[in-house]
């Protein structure tokens, strides 16, 4: 197996506060990998560094074997890195289909065109509709996004990311804010994602993590505590102590 995303000795500190401590991490091609850890373990910081929103203090990030540590978010996206956000980061006053189309237009490189009307780009619209259909959102395509129920908005987050056709997809708590009763809908969508996309999921819903992930990395206080198959992780005493222990008092 070859790695599609890798970090080597990744560190980030804000003054005396270390939020990422020598993180060595590898994401294999086609992976279903989860990143878990208690609140404040540094999961979101890690994702932001991977995407390029936050510069690491030291260490390196490799995407498809190429060092992208110094590259902008835009360059990383071009190399096939996509993400969703923990808190909905959507175009609230646009239609659902335009939310996806904007991402697809950037991938096609038509975002600079000032002459032709956007409505004439049938391929962009067609691809958007395909993505929405695959996620069961086709009927809502022309709805204004803010008029959608929250659960479906979470799916639009994923739809936008899929529109980018990423090789590596970072899912930052896709089920955040959704009652656990409904999180099975998210799981269904996640299960249906193309197997060639390598997925790193950050999630608090342990049910979802253990059903979806084939490999789990546990982060605690900015450092990797352990990595292994779900059975190994759930059996590990240290993980129970930092993670479950904190949760259940």
């Amino acid at each position, binding site marked *: 197996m070859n790695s599609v995303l890798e970090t080597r000795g990744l560190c980030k500190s804000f003054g005396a506060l270390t939020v990422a401590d020598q993180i060595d991490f590898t994401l294999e091609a086609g992976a279903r990998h989860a990143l878990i850890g208690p609140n404040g373990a540094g999961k979101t910081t890690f994702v932001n560094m991977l995407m390029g929103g936050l510069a690491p203090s030291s260490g390196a990030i490799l995407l498809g074997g190429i060092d992208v540590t110094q590259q902008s*978010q835009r360059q990383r996206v071009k190399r096939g890195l996509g993400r969703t956000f923990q808190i909905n980061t959507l175009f609230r006053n*646009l239609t659902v289909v335009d939310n996806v189309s904007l991402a697809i237009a950037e991938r096609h490189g038509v975002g600079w065109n000032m002459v032709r*009307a956007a409505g004439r780009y049938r391929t962009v619209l067609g691809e958007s509709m395909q993505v929405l259909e695959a996620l069961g959102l086709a009927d809502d395509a022309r709805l204004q996004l803010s008029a959608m129920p929250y659960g479906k908005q979470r799916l639009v987050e994923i739809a936008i990311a899929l529109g980018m056709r990423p090789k590596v997809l970072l899912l930052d708590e896709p089920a955040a804010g959704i009652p656990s009763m409904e999180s099975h809908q998210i799981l269904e969508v996640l299960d249906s994602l193309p197997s060639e996309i390598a997925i790193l999921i950050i999630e608090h819903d342990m049910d979802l993590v253990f059903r979806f992930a084939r490999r789990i990395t546990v982060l605690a206080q900015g450092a990797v505590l352990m990595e292994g198959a779900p059975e190994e992780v759930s059996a590990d005493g240290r993980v129970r102590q930092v993670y479950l222990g904190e949760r259940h008092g």
Partner: protein
Amino acid sequence: MTTPSHAGGYVSDARIRPIEWLPWIIAVTCYFAAPSYLPLGSFILIMILFALSLDLILGYAGIITLGHAAYFGFGAYVSGILAARVTTDPLIGLAVGGFAAGLLGWLTGLVILRTRGLTLLMLTLAITSICYEVANKATDWTGGADGLGGFSVTPILGLFKFDLFNKTAYVYCLVFLFLGWWLVRRLIYSPFGASLTGIRENVARMYAVGAPVYQRLVIVYAISAALAGIAGALLTHTTQFVGLKVLSFEFSGDLLVMLILGGVGRIYGAFVGPVVYLVAQDSLAKQFPEYWYFGIGLMLVLVVIFARGGILGILDVLLSKLRRRKR
């Protein structure tokens, strides 16, 4: 906030609707029906073009600015100095004025668009203040506080002479407003325009889908500045005078008030706002010479409290109520 009536996007129909010809029909009618109002009319047309340029960056791209007069004023002065020293041909003056303002917009945009929010607002203000002071001090070129006058403008294309009744001026302004409108409308409905709306709606998401956010903002800022510069040059040619007022902070403020009054981010707010503002100013100033600003202030307060979408926003609400009743 409701969806503005003129937003682009990949499911929008960019064809011109019949109602969109209304402003032009009114403008042409005014030419024949109210010949004594043509000087005011020309100024209104210029302000509409200026407001359109602001709507492009404020309403669509979400760039908040209090300094757009810098580009209007720069275009006005460049075309004025050109007329006084180099050539009195108005079309050359217009092209050079617009290009110079666009260049200034591009250069200043490169610096200030690295910031957002209040910082950006302060920087736009600073740029206007700098331009104002430069124009004030460089009296050899600009005439300083006395203004720049004493130049003449030759007939357009050698055919249409600027007359005392502003007939030529009105048509001149109307033609360039039409071209400006066509350009802005085209931009808004294009993928470029859609991406600007995306940047306004959620900049973090636009970064995450790999859009070159900063570069897009700089380019639209330069285009908007060029349009503002053309509006400024139109004022220079139609009045054959440039005063310091065109670079003032108050002028930027007045423009913002006009656009908010009409409705931000909907193209035609830039048409309605200046008409209402300037006609109200004209008639109020005649009837209550001391208190006319009170009327403007009252109007703005009412719009901000009761109609966030401006006058066009009110119309939208009324129309949708009417439609519902019909069903």
